[in-house]
């Protein structure tokens, strides 16, 4: 018997030919904010559906709040808040009606759950009389989140909850997740945003139905295996294409206003890489480039762990 909030042991799930989950094991502690990141098709949504009892695993076992996902399905459903990646609202009901509906399904009211949902709900509350299908994409997402929270669950499963949510609201939403976690709620959340992954206590990197590693997000970058430099310069797209052809290029990606260049010679001093690359760029006609050695972040590591055949320099 484990006292973890979520305990997953050797879970497997197959759909026909596709192995959606293979031997997945991890534990999330009570009050932990646990992140799942990985490309589309990594198995995150399947894992959420197993943990919320909507899908039976083919192999292994899992418990949520000590309850078995196969045997104790109704007990789990009553205590879980789940926001699936594709959440359906009732388009012909108003904002307030949608929320009351979800509250009543769990035998509660908007008023009882109000303090929990307030930071998010307040941003759409002035439109509470508007039909949900007339909301903007991100406003719908905020309503869906409020619906998942309104019944005061003991554990939250959020499958990419901030897709379509603007940058300011995302950061407020994460402030709210931290507040919830401090009150003891366990949260398992998947996200395609690496700035959000940074705000988790631990992150599991998933790919192809497996968990590759689980670490505090700040440590994920520290195991980056190759020298990395940041490059800035004019005519960025051509510069990118040109750097990919550099003799020792491993990968080159845009990162906001910079490019990140990874060299394929492990152990080489990044300073040396920078000066070599500067000469190369100059030779290719990019005179004004600035190149500095940098430490890898979680987004660099994410991309290094994921296969990207199109991106590799040949």
């Amino acid at each position, binding site marked *: 018997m484990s006292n973890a909030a979520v305990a997953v042991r050797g879970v497997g799930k197959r759909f026909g030919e596709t192995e959606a989950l293979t031997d997945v094991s991890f534990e999330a502690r009570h009050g932990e904010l646990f992140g799942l990141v990985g*490309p589309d098709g990594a198995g995150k949504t399947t894992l959420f559906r197993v943990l919320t009892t909507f899908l039976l695993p083919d192999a292994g076992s899992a418990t949520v709040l000590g309850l078995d996902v196969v045997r104790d399905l109704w007990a789990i459903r009553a205590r879980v808040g789940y926001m699936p990646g594709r959440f359906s609202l009732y388009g012909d009901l108003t904002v307030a009606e949608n929320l009351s509906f979800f509250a009543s399904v769990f035998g509660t009211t908007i008023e009882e759950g109000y303090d929990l949902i307030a930071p998010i709900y307040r941003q759409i509350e002035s439109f509470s009389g508007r039909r949900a299908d007339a909301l*903007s994409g991100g406003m719908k*997402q905020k309503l869906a989140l409020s619906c998942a929270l309104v019944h005061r669950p003991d554990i939250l499963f959020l499958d*990419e909850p901030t897709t*379509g949510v603007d940058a*300011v609201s995302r950061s407020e939403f994460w402030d709210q997740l931290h507040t919830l976690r401090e009150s003891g709620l366990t949260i398992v959340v998947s996200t395609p945003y690496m700035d959000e992954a940074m705000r988790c206590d631990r992150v599991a990197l998933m790919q192809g139905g497996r968990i590759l590693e689980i670490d505090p997000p700040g440590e994920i970058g520290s195991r980056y295996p190759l020298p990395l430099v940041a490059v800035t310069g004019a005519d960025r797209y051509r510069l990118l294409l040109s750097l990919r052809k550099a003799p020792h290029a491993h990968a080159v990606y*845009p990162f*906001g*206003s910079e490019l990140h260049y990874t060299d394929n010679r492990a152990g080489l001093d990044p300073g040396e890489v920078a000066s070599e690359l500067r000469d190369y760029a100059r030779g290719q006609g990019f005179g004004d480039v600035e190149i500095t050695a940098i430490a890898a972040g979680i987004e660099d590591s994410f991309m290094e762990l994921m296969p990207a055949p199109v991106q590799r320099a040949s």
Partner: protein
Amino acid sequence: MTEPAIAVRDLTRRFGGFTAVDSISFDVAPGEVFGFLGANGAGKTTAIRMLIGLLAPTSGEARVAGFDVVKQTEQIRHQIGYMSQRFSLYEDLTVLENIALYGGIYGLGAEQIAERSSAMLQSLGLADDLVGRLPLGRKQKLAFSVALLHEPAVVFLDEPTGGVDPITRRQFWELIYAAAEGGTTVFVTTHYMDEAEYCDRISIMVDGRIVTLGTPQELKSKWDVPTIDALFVKLARPA
């Protein structure tokens, strides 16, 4: 001087007493990658729907690829591509069926469709599966290629990378760059602020109005912020 690809003057849309788009004006040059930013509910999708001739403006005017968005919707349809915020392909049709369907809508002949579909499958590395079975990132790349099928002058992309992982959205941006290199004008919305840095120019919309517009570099120095993310925080939600 060449005519702008998109020219907008005092464009306004009200729903009842609520003003979703409030007298916006701007030009986008041919071949430009224009980032159309704003908080949730700022009015981006509403503006795009007017620019592609789907929604009538309450007042003001706009021309896209030289055509009036109110009076010349038919011509506009042939000159523009559009990816909606919600996924725009048919999930229960295969890749080729989708291409054939949209090719027909955009007025391409059978021969052109056949030619372009096989080129598209190859460049995207796709088989002719049901679209509903593809991972999101691949769907989005396919939807983008389909939006470019008839070689439009201007393509409107409403959050094309929403929910897409870090690698795939970079690949998506390479498709955008390649299209822009080929002369296509790209009008794109995103909530990823690093992507704003990839645009030639951006605008930020707040409550229906455009509050600032320029190159990412210009805006960062004008507002004295290190990143577009910081600028967005400063402007998008006035205290």
